[in-house]
């Protein structure tokens, strides 16, 4: 089975090189095939051309020679039968001459010229009587022996008639051949008009596409007539052909720029002519009609390779990026969560290290099992089956599970079970991701405990603090509460250089009230007085019961004079209050007084609390001694 897909091996350098190399190789292949085939075909065509022109030259020269043979043989025949009688009688009748040449398409006419160049007999009646200029006649100026046939020029006429009139016949040409017969030393000539079109017609049938230029030349290399009107390098051709013909009767050579033309020739062994075929190598490409197609094919393939490989390379880069990204994600997930991969039936195919670490199982202990193994009976038996059903319907299952390690220790996980699909959307694998939340749950529980503990403690502390500092009877601070508060207040005052004053109060004759009316009435008096005084004081002032009938007031930020006034007010309030003690079983009207000693830190900054209270105590003592129900304050030192 596949290994867990959590490590993706990428070899970007190798693949990128491969992606660059492959198109280069493909292009190399395409162009080698193209150039190779070009070379091969070209070579093949050239070889074919050389063989063809030589073969054609052989055949056409043979044909030409035979055609000329027929001319020569007729000339020789009429010459042989042109005895003195015939010549004196003015030659032969036209009909006879005509019969002689009728079935020979090479010959247009056969005529007899007298020594003055006048036609005295001809197969063509229209020729008779015309006079030819001597310079057009074959072998003009040359010394002739009888019955030797010489060939003359090619002229643009149909026959001797228009030649004598010097009327060119468009599209027609003739070639003259003649032989001389002497009668009493006077040269008569038999002149044959050779039909050059016969050759051209034959050649055009032989080479209908006119790939090559077939022509008849004289032994000096001069053109007599050819298929093409004139060759672009006619002079060079004539010179080279003349040279070649002097050396050999047959052969071939290249000429022209870049050896463009190939000329194959054969000289006639009998007649002073040579047949030459000039082939244009540049036309080889044109004959090769598939050449453009091949080039197009190569270009198209190149384009295809380039576009496809570019596309493929881009695709690969995208693939590379996504694979790297996927690897990162897989690593991140693998590091963060436990993961197990199952087949659609729930059988585990792969697990990651985090899961093994947490559960303590070995990999081979889990492969092939279902995840029920991890449930360890902590869930209902079909719990995982239900999850699988959800996932198989294509949905993602999320929830909390309690699982069990191999050793049986339970742990909580936050599970996400995801169906993985293939390219066609079919579910191929089920991937379960577990994040271990046991620690989180433990921590939460611990935090809740701590919070509860703190609340309880605070409550307890509150209760404890109240009981210790408060007088239960009056609800005022007791001595301890007073001292802790006063200490701070005094400290704050001295810090800000403000005076603090203290009043020491003691109810007069309180022992008698207790003794006379009972403790219940005494407690009532104490409670009522505390209430009365509390109402007279500022909120910043502190009234406390120090013990028995002794009270104390701390007046922060108060000077001695103000303190005296406060004391007087409190004394007066006490005197004016008539208490109804019936609820405590006492009299309906009970009057009490109070003696008050005043002390202040006004003239003695830095005075400690005991010192202050001590001074107030002494003043109280003075007030008791002075007759009670009065306020005594220390005399201020000037």
């Amino acid at each position: 089975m596949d290994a867990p897909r959590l490590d993706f091996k990428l070899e970007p350098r190798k693949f990128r090189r491969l992606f660059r190399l492959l198109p280069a190789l493909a292009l190399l292949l395409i162009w080698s095939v193209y150039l190779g085939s070009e070379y091969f075909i070209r070579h093949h065509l050239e070889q074919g051309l050389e063989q063809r022109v030589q073969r054609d030259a052989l055949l056409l020269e043979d044909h030409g020679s035979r055609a000329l043979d027929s001319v020569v043989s007729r000339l020789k025949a009429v010459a042989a039968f042109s005895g003195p009688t015939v010549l004196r009688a003015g030659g032969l009748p036209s009909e006879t001459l005509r019969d002689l040449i009728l079935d020979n398409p090479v010959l247009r006419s056969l005529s007899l010229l007298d020594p003055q160049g006048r036609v005295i007999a001809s197969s063509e009646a229209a020729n008779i009587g015309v006079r030819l200029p001597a310079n057009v006649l074959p072998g003009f100026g040359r010394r002739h022996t009888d019955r030797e046939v010489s060939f003359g020029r090619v002229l643009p006429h149909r026959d001797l008639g228009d030649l004598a009139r010097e009327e060119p016949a468009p599209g027609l040409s003739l070639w003259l051949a003649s032989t001389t017969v002497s009668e009493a030393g006077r040269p008569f000539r038999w002149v044959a008009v050779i039909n050059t079109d016969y050759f051209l017609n034959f050649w055009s049938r032989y080479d209908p596409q006119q790939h090559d230029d077939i022509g008849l030349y004289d032994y000096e290399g001069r053109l007599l007539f050819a298929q093409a009107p004139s060759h672009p390098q006619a002079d060079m051709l004539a010179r080279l052909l003349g040279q070649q013909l002097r050396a050999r009767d047959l052969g071939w050579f290249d000429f022209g720029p870049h050896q463009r033309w190939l000329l194959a020739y054969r000289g006639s062994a009998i007649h002073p002519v040579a047949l030459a075929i000039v082939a244009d190598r540049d036309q080889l490409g044109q004959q090769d009609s598939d050449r453009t197609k091949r080039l197009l094919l190569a270009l198209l393939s190149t384009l295809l390779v380039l576009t496809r490989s570019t596309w493929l390379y881009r695709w690969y880069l995208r693939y590379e990026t996504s694979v790297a990204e996927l690897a990162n994600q897989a690593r991140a997930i693998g590091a963060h969560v436990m993961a197990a991969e199952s087949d659609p039936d729930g059988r585990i195919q792969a697990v990651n290290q985090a899961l093994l670490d947490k559960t303590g199982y070995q990999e081979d202990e889990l492969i092939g099992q279902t995840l029920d193994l991890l449930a360890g009976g902590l869930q209902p038996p079909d719990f995982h089956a239900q999850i699988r059903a959800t996932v198989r319907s294509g949905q993602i299952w999320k929830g909390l599970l309690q699982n069990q390690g191999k050793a049986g220790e339970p742990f909580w996980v936050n599970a996400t079970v995801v169906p993985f699909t293939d390219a066609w959307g079919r579910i191929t694998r089920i991937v379960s991701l577990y994040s271990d939340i046991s620690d989180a749950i433990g921590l939460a529980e611990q935090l809740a405990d701590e919070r509860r503990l703190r609340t309880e403690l605070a409550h307890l502390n509150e209760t404890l603090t109240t009981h210790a500092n408060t007088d239960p009877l009056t609800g005022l601070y007791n001595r301890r509460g007073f001292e802790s508060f006063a200490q701070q207040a005094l400290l704050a005052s001295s810090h800000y250089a403000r005076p603090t004053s203290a009043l020491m109060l003691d109810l007069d004759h309180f022992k008698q009230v207790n003794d006379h009316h009972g403790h219940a009435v005494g407690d009532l008096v104490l409670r009522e007085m505390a209430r009365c005084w509390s109402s007279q004081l500022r909120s910043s002032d502190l009234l406390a019961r120090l013990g028995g009938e002794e009270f104390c007031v701390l007046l922060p930020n108060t000077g001695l004079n103000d303190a005296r006034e406060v004391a007087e007010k409190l004394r007066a309030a006490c005197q004016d209050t008539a208490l109804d003690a019936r609820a405590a079983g006492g009299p309906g009207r009970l009057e009490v007084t109070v003696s008050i000693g005043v002390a202040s830190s006004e003239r003695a900054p830095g005075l400690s609390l005991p010192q202050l209270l001590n001074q107030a105590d002494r003043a109280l003592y003075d007030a008791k001694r002075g007759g009670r129900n009065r306020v005594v304050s220390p005399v201020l030192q000037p």
Partner: protein
Amino acid sequence: MPLRPGPLLLLLPLALGLGAGARAQTLDEIRRSGTLKVCIWPDYFGISYRSPRTGALQGLDIDLSRELARELSARVEYVETDFTRLLDDLQARKCQVAMMAVGVTAARAARVDFSTPYLRSDIYAIATRSSRAVQTWDDIDQPGRIVVVQKGTYMEPLMQKTLRHAALRTVERPQEREHEVESGRADVFITDYPYSRRMLMNTDWARLLAPSRIIQLTDYAYAVPRGDASWLQRINEFVAQIKRDGRLAQTADRHGLLPIVARD
């Protein structure tokens, strides 16, 4: 098919002249001798052609003359002639019918009787393939051009009438037209459709020039000696019959002449 002359046709011999009645004996003659004498031109390719290789006659009219003879329960006897001698031969009754695609011309009609036409062709010209002087039909009638026609054919008077610039040369001997053109003594020769087929099929030096417009459509018919109306009627019946039953088209097709079959 039994002969059932209509009343009008019965009057025709009388209308044609006094001598007609006396000569209305061709059918009897054929019946008596059991022989149908047919004039042909053995050089007429596709029509009545004696193959130079086998010596056998072949062509459209060879086939059709055999059909006619079969209908008349006679055997065919071919009388070789040409267009120069044809009219004389017919008048001399060397043959009873000329089945050789005889072009219907006024001059001929004055001397012989024509059946209804069975072919209809324009004229064509043959030049050499390599000819630089004559490339199209319109190059023919130009100064300096020489045009050849076969003596006795209907092209002869037609060309005499139509050519304005080119010279006309009339030749007589077999193959002479071809020789004249191939040797360059003439530029083209004028012929008809069947002969042009022959040139295209049997030579490779020749080029066919079709007229750029209709020059003159000529009817081809069978010619009979003048004066025997019942015989002419029988021939006309035959022509109508082979047109009707498809024998003409089939046979013409076999000899490459379907395009010029006269449908009317």
